[in-house]
């Protein structure tokens, strides 16, 4: 950008001319003590709960504890610049963040300031970070699917728009990968995404942003980052701030998807904050309202009624377990709040099943209603087949003499497990998922060796796209497999399987 010195003087001149001089009426208090991200303030008598207070230097604080003679305040910024005796001003504003389409494609911190070095955000609207979730009348049942692009999730634990589906598992087994894929899968849809990174390494967040950018997913995604080095109040607030950004779309009749990565860290940040504010600790030293913290956050994800524009906010909260312990405090809490969970297991991950979804322990409580008919038709028996396979596989390990029926079931099961594997950053559209699941459940894969299935899958998509594209088109349009389509699919699969076999020399 070229700008002359003359122009700069003009701009400044204009601003000085327009500058309104007015006496500034404010209510103030003084800092009694400060430290660990918490400041106690004397004065500011009419301060409201969750009000923003202004320290010098533009640092903001969030009034959390209103006591008889002081206000406990979480500092949203650098505490080291605040001294005892400093003056604190009331802003009269309840904590809010900028929202709107201008936020898309940006990386912001927990209070909505850009941190991606791409200049200021020209958001026209702001929204309070703590608002009540839509009431009973304002809602409607979850009925449309929100595809995550992952075959295993979409077929067996389908997520509907407005649903809250927990992604739970140990560290380093692909929880973030499932969610990032879900964001990438929204590229062809009208769903806006928010990715909230809480308490993560900055390098990890940078990788996620990079992956989203590479897959053209940043165009419709806002990343809210409160990293491990940010103070606890920022990590606590980030989830609510991200939610407010997602709600903007929901309330404007659009659809949005929010990923909280992860809520365990948010709970830990809130515990730190609460202990410093001297709230009494409860189980695992978490404060008494830790359940409410998560429930009021997740309750804001909803499908709103037609009168209110039929928008939706789908949530994919992530919880990290310690050594697979789902009965710890925070995991049980969040499991009970959400409408189902996707459970990722280390054993599966290390034996090469990726995404490492444990089909038996994963459920979706409302997603079935949101599944399209075609998906129900192919996935209906999938869960059962897999359950039987697991049972048999454990049992078949002991003996070699198996009858033909058992053998067939084992063959089928092995192949189903194989086709549910999926590489990272390659979400699949619904018609493609249905095509491969159709091939699996109808037995076209039973005669193929397992190690050729990955190739088979790619070749199948290419084959259908080139020689029978109307299969994908009809699936997309009608969302069900009628008899005519079924016949056509059978014919195509049969022909393709033969040529595939011939090409591989089987």
């Amino acid at each position, binding site marked *: 950008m070229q700008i002359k010195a003359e122009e700069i003087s003009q*701009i*400044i001149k204009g*601003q*000085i001319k327009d*500058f309104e*001089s007015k*006496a*500034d*009426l*404010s*209510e*103030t*208090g003084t800092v*009694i003590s400060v430290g660990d991200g918490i400041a106690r303030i*004397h*004065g*500011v*008598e*009419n301060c409201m709960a969750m009000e923003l207070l202004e320290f010098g230097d533009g640092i903001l604080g969030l009034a959390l504890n209103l006591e008889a*003679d*002081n206000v406990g305040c979480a500092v949203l910024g650098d505490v080291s610049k605040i001294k005892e005796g400093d*003056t604190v*001003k009331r802003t009269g504003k309840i904590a809010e963040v900028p929202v709107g389409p201008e936020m898309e494609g940006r990386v912001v911190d927990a209070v909505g300031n850009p941190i991606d070095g791409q200049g200021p955000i020209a958001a026209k609207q702001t929204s309070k970070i703590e608002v009540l979730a839509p009431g009973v009348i304002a809602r409607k049942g979850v009925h449309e699917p929100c595809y995550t692009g992952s075959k295993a999730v979409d077929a067996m634990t389908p997520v509907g728009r407005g649903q809250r589906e927990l992604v739970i598992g140990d560290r380093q087994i692909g929880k973030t990968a499932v969610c990032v894929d879900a964001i990438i899968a929204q590229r062809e849809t009208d769903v806006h995404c928010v990715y909230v990174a809480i308490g993560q390494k900055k390098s990890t967040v940078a990788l996620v942003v990079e992956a989203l950018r590479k897959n053209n997913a940043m165009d419709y995604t806002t990343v809210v980052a409160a990293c491990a080095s940010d103070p606890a109040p920022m990590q606590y607030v980030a989830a609510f701030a991200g939610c407010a950004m997602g709600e903007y779309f929901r309330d404007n009749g659009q659809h949005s998807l929010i990923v909280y990565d992860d809520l365990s860290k948010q709970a830990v940040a809130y515990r730190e904050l609460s202990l410093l504010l001297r709230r009494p600790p409860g189980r695992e030293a978490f404060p008494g309202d830790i359940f409410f913290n998560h429930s009021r956050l997740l309750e804001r994800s909803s499908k709103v009624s037609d009168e209110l524009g039929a928008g939706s906010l789908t949530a994919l909260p992530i919880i990290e377990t310690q050594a697979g312990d789902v009965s710890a405090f925070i995991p049980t809490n969040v499991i009970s709040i959400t409408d189902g969970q996707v459970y990722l297991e280390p054993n599966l991950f290390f034996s090469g099943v990726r995404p490492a979804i444990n089909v038996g322990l994963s459920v979706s409580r409302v997603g079935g209603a949101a599944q399209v008919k075609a998906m129900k038709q192919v996935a209906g028996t999938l869960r059962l087949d897999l359950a039987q396979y697991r049972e048999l596989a454990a049992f078949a390990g002991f003996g070699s003499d198996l009858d033909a029926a058992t053998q067939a079931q084992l063959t089928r099961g092995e192949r189903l497990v194989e086709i549910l594997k999926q590489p990272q950053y390659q979400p699949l559209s619904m018609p493609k998922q249905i095509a491969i699941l159709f091939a699996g459940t109808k037995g076209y894969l039973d005669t193929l060796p397992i190690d050729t299935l990955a190739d088979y899958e790619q070749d199948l998509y290419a084959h259908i796209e080139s020689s029978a594209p109307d299969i994908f088109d009809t699936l997309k349009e009608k969302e069900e497999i009628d008899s005519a389509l079924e016949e056509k699919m059978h014919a195509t699969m049969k022909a393709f399987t033969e040529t595939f076999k011939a090409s591989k020399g089987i």
Partner: protein
Amino acid sequence: MKNALLAKRYAKALFAVGTEADSLDAFATTLDGFASLVGDNPELADALSNPLYPADAREAVMAEIVKAAGVEGMMANFLNLVAQKRRADTLGDIAETFQIMVDEANNTCQGVVISASELDETLTGEVQQTLEKITGKRVAITTEVDESIIGGIIAKVGDLVLDGSIKTQLDELKESIKGSN
């Protein structure tokens, strides 16, 4: 501020006694005088509260000062009690809290007006009237001169700050120029 609760207890007791005797304002003046006396003389504060000196010696010091200052009756008793209970170091807080209680009872409040140069009486009166209009209470004004604010005035009443100083406006102008780029 750490003794806010303690100061409140003592101030409340003195306030109750003062209301009965109808001498709140007199009490407030005396207490304020004593608090500033202790505040301005670190040696005196030390003599009254340093545990190195025996307790009865400290009490005796207080009794002497009370006598010398010509304080009598209940106020004298109160000051001696404070010394006896070894709370002489909270006198400042007690005086402050007591003043707030008395002000509340009288529907007044304390205001401070800071200006760059000495204000004349009509101007002070006008400021007082404006502050009274804003707070809905009678305002007792003390004036201070602080040249660093360059011009205009800053008026403080309780938590309320009315800032019309040139310094603040210049700061804001600076921020607004910074902010728009």
